């Protein structure tokens, strides 16, 4: 019941989704749409679960007065406030909810990622020391790509943007395609292992 039933549900759903693909019938297509709708709904509940877990973790930090517990108040406060505003005012354009998104969430996210511009410089120094053929290729590709995307590159040599484009659409595409094929084959074998119950780590340990 606790371990066998989840494996059976997984097997039935996996096989059904594969089989319906090969049956282009109205009933099969209706089944496909319904299951995908349900999938979206259950997935949305898993996000609610994630939010609940976030509250649980930070609440535990506050109640135990763990190191940095004051910041957990900020997290829970921000979360509860956002939820309250979202449910009271709705999430349409122009509401307080969207204003908070615009003036708090967007700047925080953009600044957080822009910080990487500084740290990427030190990473570039380590990666770009052209000691081997591989490092030299990495260096050349990165430099040409960067120069090809800015007007300065064009002023240096008018063919640089074209070379950058060629690198992107040929050697870069070739390597990416190799990776994508590898990832695809890996995903297919993992999906098969999950459906057949060989890979069952998702149901966790215990009874």
């Amino acid at each position: 019941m606790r371990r066998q039933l989840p494996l059976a549900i997984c097997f039935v759903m996996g096989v059904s989704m594969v089989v319906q693909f090969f049956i282009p019938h109205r009933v099969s297509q209706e089944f496909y749409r319904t299951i995908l709708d349900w999938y979206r709904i259950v997935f949305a509940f898993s996000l609610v679960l994630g939010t609940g877990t976030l509250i649980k973790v930070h609440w535990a930090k506050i109640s135990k007065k763990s190191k940095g517990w004051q910041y957990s108040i900020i997290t829970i406060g921000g979360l509860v406030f956002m939820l309250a505003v979202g449910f009271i005012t709705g999430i349409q354009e122009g509401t307080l909810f969207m204003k908070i998104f615009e003036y708090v969430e967007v700047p925080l996210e953009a600044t957080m990622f822009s910080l990487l511009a500084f740290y990427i410089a030190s990473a570039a120094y380590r990666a770009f020391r052209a000691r081997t053929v591989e490092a030299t290729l990495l260096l050349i590709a990165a430099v040409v790509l960067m120069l090809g995307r800015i007007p300065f590159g064009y002023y240096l040599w008018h063919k640089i943007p074209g070379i950058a484009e060629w690198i992107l659409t040929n050697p870069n595409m070739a390597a990416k395609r190799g990776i994508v094929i590898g990832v695809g084959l890996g995903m297919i074998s993992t999906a098969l292992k999950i459906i057949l119950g060989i890979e069952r780590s998702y149901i966790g340990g215990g009874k």
Partner: protein
Amino acid sequence: MFETIGIWIAALLTLCIFSFLYKDNPFYKFAEHLFIGVSAGYWACYYYHNVLQPNLFVPLFQEGRPIFIIPLVLGIMMLLHLVPKISWISRWPLAFIVGTYAGYYLITYLQTNALEQVTATLVPLVTFSSVVLFVGVTTGLVYFFFSKEHKGTFGGIAKFGIWFLMIAFGASFGYTVMARISLLIGRMTFLLKDWLHIIQ
């Protein structure tokens, strides 16, 4: 008035995050934790209004379609993960999600990642670019074949594959740098133009 307050809040939060460039400090930690809380709240509301409301509550309670009790029950079972004694019940909806996802992507990945990529690679080698593409893909795949030791001719082909991979990583790195610099320019423009009005 509201816009002015918003710009000031955004500017101060931006400075809080940038303060990390000096060292980890309480201002950064404050902004970081606020970001986590607000993001979680945003996405929870977003999914409620855009997924649960139109796809579950409206069909079930307003249109009276009882079949939607099934995903509701599965969703509630998922939330039982938070109750340690009966957390095992959440395995059922989890198995539903994992099984559906695995079955759906088994076909999708077979089509898009495997078959279509191979089809696009196996073209007549009439141009230099098509030769580069074919050689890049095959040598790249040889490099990822770990069932045979990379020695001799096989090792040489794999080495050639590494060169292609390095060019791709360099291109990705260059792209990432440009994207991050663009974000940095955007934040600086916001501070100097929208907040301080130093530049026009």
